[in-house]
Every structure is written in structure tokens, then in C-alpha cells.
């Protein structure tokens, strides 16, 4: 298929269909409502299910119900809406159900704003819901990448029987870029008969399936949590993804940045290169699991004098960067989160200031 010019939000919608996900429940919220608008007509073309729920709370459980019935299902929302869905995400993790959530982040806290932000990093990677639950979190930096991530999210959710989140910022949803769609995926959860409440008659055997997260027996609850932990540890071994940019040569500063922010950093890096200043970039594509080794090793390169974590938040991912660098280099945070994306000029300035007193 040739390239088409598409808005990120519409590309997300189409990518889900190409991923074989024909079930979508959602509640409108800026800046991602185009996903629901697109799917409101597109799902009827492919005989899929589209439903606008009465709230994000309800939508979270429509996702739960559908996932529990053994089908591919997803929703999209933005920060305040994800907060409302976070309860259901905890239940999905506890009941070990696969589903895909897309968060096109806007500024917070509270109503915040509607412009791009990366301020839900903690929420997505550390504290999505109550209990020991985790999401596999992917962070796209372009419309093409969000398409690819949406399409890999479904098989990953099913591999781990755990929700997966695509964490994009408002620009990823609103921007139009050329995209190419990979071939259709046809499969659905292959292991569903082992766990889905999809009707005894529709499976082999006569045993019923129970989808639940309640384990009153302390040993059983502990066992369930150990099972979850084992999955999260496996994600750390098998699913880490990142991009290393300009890290081959000798760089004096390492930037760690993701999503739209990382693109701004790349422009700054190119400009600085022309001035003779080399800066490397690690761009995490998965935020959980985090590219710990990549960040640690890149920071410890002998030429590297400082690490900058640049994000559209007041300093969230920087805690992971500090954790990885383990004090080997000074780590500095820079960011904005009102909706103005830091410009390449600001980053160039920042790099120069970082280098000047040393």
C-alpha cells in the first residue's frame, strides 16, 4: 500500500482495524476525539463494534467485559479520561485480560489543558491503578510509529494477558504525516479458550471459565501477584525497545527523551553537530519495560560529561534516568508542561550551558 497523509488519531483508528481489532468503546475527550469519530463510521464498514459509552468509567468496564469474552478490544482517551479508566485497568491486570489503551496526553493536573504533554509518565509506568499492576507502555514519536505500535500492541497484550498502553502526546494525535499500513493481522487471542468467558459451548470440554481478580485466600492472592510479577519480569527481558541516535561517536552530553520531545531534541542535536558539539540521544520506545541498560551504558561512555532528561512534564522520567545512571554522571532535568513544546533553540542553549562551566 502506498503512503497516505493521515492525522495521528485517524491513523491509530485505522491501525487497530488492520490489527484485527474490531471492537472499540470510548468516550470523547480532546485531543483524541477523532479516533471515535473515525471509528463511528469505519467500524460499520468492517462489521465491527463501535459504542460511545456514558463515561470513561463505564468504558473501562466495557473493555473489561469484551476482553473477558475473548475478543480484541481497545479504547482511546486522554489524561483525565485515563484517570477514570485506571480503576478498570487494575481489574484487567488482576484478572489477566488483554486490551489496548491509547492515551493521547494533555496537560494536567486536574483539567489542566488540552495541549501536548508528557505528564502522565508516572501514571502509565508506575501507578496506573491500585495493587501491584503494570502496563506495557510504548511511546511513539511519529504517526508512522504510532501505527506500528498499535499493531504490535494487540499481540503483546495477548502474549502477556495484560493491558498495553500507547502513550502519545497531543501532537502525535493531532499531527498529519504520511503513513504506510502494514498488512492486515487476522488472528485473535489464540489462548482465549483457557481463560475467556466466551461460553462453554464454544470451547472444548465442559468446564466453565471464571474471569476474576478477587482472591480472599492470602496464599492465592500472593500466587496471583507472583504470576503477574513473573510476567512483568519477562517483559523486562523480552520487550525493551529504544532508539539510539548519534551515539556511535564521542559525545559530550547524552539526552534521554521520548515521543514528540525526542524529535525536537534530534533537530537540536543536528544543529549542535554543525557547530562541532556532539550530543547523543537515547529515545525509549518502551517506557515500561525501561531501556535501563541502554541508558546506563550510554551515560557511562567516557566522553559523556552529563545526562539531560528532557520531557514535557515537571520531572518524571528523570527519576528513571537517575535510577539507571546510578550517580555515574550528573543528571539534569529540563521540561515544560503547559502545552508549549520546548524548541530546538532552548535545547541547544541548555546543552551549551551544561557544557560551559565544566
Amino acid at each position, binding site marked *: 500500500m502506498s*503512503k497516505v*497523509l493521515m492525522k495521528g488519531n485517524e491513523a491509530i483508528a485505522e491501525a487497530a482495524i488492520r490489527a484485527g481489532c474490531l471492537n472499540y468503546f470510548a468516550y470523547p475527550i*480532546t*485531543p483524541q476525539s477523532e479516533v471515535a469519530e473515525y471509528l463511528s463510521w469505519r467500524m460499520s464498514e468492517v462489521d465491527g463494534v463501535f459504542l460511545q459509552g456514558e463515561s470513561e468509567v463505564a468504558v473501562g468496564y466495557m473493555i473489561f467485559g469484551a476482553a473477558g469474552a475473548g475478543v480484541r478490544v481497545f479504547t482511546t482517551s486522554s489524561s483525565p479520561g485515563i484517570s477514570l479508566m485506571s480503576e478498570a485497568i487494575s481489574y484487567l491486570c488482576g484478572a489477566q485480560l488483554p486490551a489496548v489503551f491509547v492515551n493521547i496526553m494533555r496537560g494536567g493536573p486536574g483539567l489542566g489543558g*488540552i*495541549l501536548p504533554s508528557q505528564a502522565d509518565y508516572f501514571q502509565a509506568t508506575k501507578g496506573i491503578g491500585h495493587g501491584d499492576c503494570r502496563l506495557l507502555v510504548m511511546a511513539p514519536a511519529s504517526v508512522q510509529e504510532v501505527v506500528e505500535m498499535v499493531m504490535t500492541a494487540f499481540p503483546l497484550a495477548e502474549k502477556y494477558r495484560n493491558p498495553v498502553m500507547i502513550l502519545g502526546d*497531543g*501532537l502525535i494525535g*493531532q*499531527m*498529519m*504525516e*504520511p503513513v504506510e499500513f502494514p498488512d492486515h493481522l487476522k488472528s485473535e487471542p489464540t489462548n482465549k479458550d483457557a481463560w475467556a468467558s466466551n461460553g462453554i459451548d464454544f470451547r472444548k470440554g465442559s468446564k466453565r471459565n471464571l474471569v476474576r481478580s478477587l482472591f480472599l485466600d492470602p496464599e492465592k492472592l500472593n500466587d496471583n501477584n507472583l504470576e503477574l510479577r513473573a510476567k512483568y519480569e519477562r517483559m523486562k527481558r523480552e520487550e525493551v525497545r529504544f532508539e539510539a541516535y548519534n551515539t556511535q561517536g564521542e559525545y559530550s552530553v547524552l539526552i534521554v527523551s521520548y515521543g*514528540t520531545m525526542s*524529535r*525536537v531534541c*534530534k*533537530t*537540536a542535536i*543536528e544543529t549542535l553537530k554543525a557547530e562541532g558539539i556532539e550530543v547523543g540521544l537515547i529515545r525509549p520506545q518502551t517506557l515500561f519495560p525501561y531501556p535501563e541498560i541502554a541508558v546506563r551504558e550510554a551515560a557511562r561512555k567516557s566522553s559523556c560529561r552529563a545526562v539531560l532528561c528532557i520531557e514535557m512534564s515537571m520531572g518524571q522520567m528523570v527519576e528513571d534516568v537517575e535510577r539507571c545512571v546510578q550517580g555515574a554522571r550528573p543528571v539534569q532535568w529540563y521540561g515544560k508542561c503547559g502545552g508549549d*513544546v520546548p*524548541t*530546538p*533553540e532552548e535545547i541547544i542553549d541548555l546543552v551549551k550551558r551544561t557544557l560551559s562551566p565544566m
Partner: protein
Amino acid sequence: MQSEVMFAGFGGQGILLSGKILAHAAMEEGYEVAWIPSYGPEMRGGTAYCLVVISDKPIGSPIIKNPKHLVAMNRPSLDKFAYAIKPGGVILSNASLIPNPAGRSDVDELRVQTGEIAAQAGSAKAANIVALSAFVARSGLVQLKTLKHCIEEEFSKRPQLIPLNLKAMEAGIAAAQKE
């Protein structure tokens, strides 16, 4: 080489559409493109703008402080963005609604009566296509035949609008040459 074009005006002037057609045309010619809208409540009736980035390399920052070119469809847009345009860029201003020039000597300013020209072509609503075509003719960012093809494609679902918009395109190109 990277060029950036800011399209700005009132909501309802077809600002986002003009930008989309240009981005599409550049994509057809093999460039990397990004189209970034302003979004939010200000879109309804207030200022609408979008930025089109065209490059022969993968596009880094989609956030551009100083775009190379500007297509300003109303006075607040010209006031807001004219100062930021890089020297040597093109500023197309809609003379139908903007009485005074931008007052910059280091840019190529093109004033076009888009409203009147579009009305003569058949409908004042096609002023955005007049402006876009005049801008493309002057800046040479994409070939005119690609522009034509993309206008046709944009209106393919409402084919009755194609002749009007192609007429508006021709008139816009002519206006750029007259200047």
C-alpha cells in the same frame, strides 16, 4: 533542505484544508511532510492556524519558532506571525481583509485580493485555494501540476466543487505572476 509554511486566518476560512493540500502535494513529490494544526476551543470562529513542514530528510522538531513562509488570511494572523518569518521567505497576505502590508523589507511579500478573485471564479469560499495557489506559484515549493492533482483529489468526494476550485487555482497562479 527544509521549508515551513504557516497558514493562518479565521476559523472557517479553510486554513487547515489549504495546509493539508500543500502537505499532500509535497508528499506526492516524495518529500517528508508534517502538518501540525492548532487545536482547541480557539478553532471555532477564532484564529485557526496550521504549520506544514516539508523536508528532504526525516523531520525532527515539528515545532517551529521561525517558519520560512506565511500565508495570512486575516489581519490578526499577519500581526501575530509576520515578525517571526525567516528573512528571504514568502509572506502571502490576503489583501481583501488586510489593509496594510507587513512592513518587512527582507521577505517577499505578495498581496492578493483572494476574496474578490475567488468570487470572480465562482465563489468567495474558494479564497483559500486562491491564496494557496498564489503562494505555491510564488514559492515554487511544489509543482503546479501536483497541486492541481491534489486539489482534485481533495474534492473527489464532492466532484461538483472541482471546476470551481481549479478555476480559483488558475486565478491564484495568475495573481502571483501579476504582482
